[in-house]
């Protein structure tokens, strides 16, 4: 059982690594946000789950604190990505050259 938890934690760590690396592969902020949000969703879940399992195994009794952390992350990270994207768009960060369609431009006008 211990091994499963540790593997989960390792996988989680790898997901985080991928998402950090991802931010370098994309050219503009908006795509990079996609990459970053992987870590706050999948990565956090895996890692948090592994940690809580490992914790409860180690301490004998149920150890749910990592789950609370996951809850907070799930609550806050989508919003922060949203806000960052919105701010970027508002301050006129250019979209990457080969974008096909920009829906927000229309909505942006009515503000």
């Amino acid at each position: 059982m211990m091994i499963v938890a540790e593997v989960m934690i390792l996988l989680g760590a790898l997901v985080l690594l991928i998402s950090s690396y991802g931010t370098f592969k994309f050219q503009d902020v908006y795509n990079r946000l996609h990459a970053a949000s992987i870590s706050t969703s999948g990565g956090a879940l895996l890692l948090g789950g592994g940690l809580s399992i490992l914790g409860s195994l180690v301490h004998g009794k149920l150890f749910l604190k990592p789950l609370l952390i996951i809850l907070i992350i799930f609550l806050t990270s989508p919003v922060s990505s949203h806000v960052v994207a919105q701010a970027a768009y508002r301050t006129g960060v250019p979209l990457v050259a080969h974008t096909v369609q920009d829906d927000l431009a229309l909505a942006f006008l009515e503000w």
Partner: protein
Amino acid sequence: MDAFIPRMIARLATPLILALALYLFLRGHHEPGGGFIAGLVAASALVLQAVVGGRSAGAKYIPVPGWVLIGLGLFCAAGTGLIGLVLGQPFLTHYFGTVLLGGVEVELTTAQLFDLGVFLVVVGTTQSVILNISGDR
């Protein structure tokens, strides 16, 4: 459309952060925590409100202006010091003992009151600085 989503989330997140601050405050004496850190965490909740909701929200959240909190905090801290003085001990001696609170044995200590003073001052300072900078009172 402007800051609608963050404001909604902030309304949800702020009580959570405040609960976190309270948690940190109450266990300060044994595990890491204490008045100062709890104060800062509470202050960040306040900051969130001020940032997201604009000036009025921050103020609305804690109706009392900053310096009242500071005053209260200092009073608390110095007050607990005086208790020691009153009982003939040197200034700022603390007393602690276990008290049965609703069947649960709770360990109360005047140091906690002093810590409350620190907490209030920190929150008060941040409140007055933020509201001030963001142009409110």
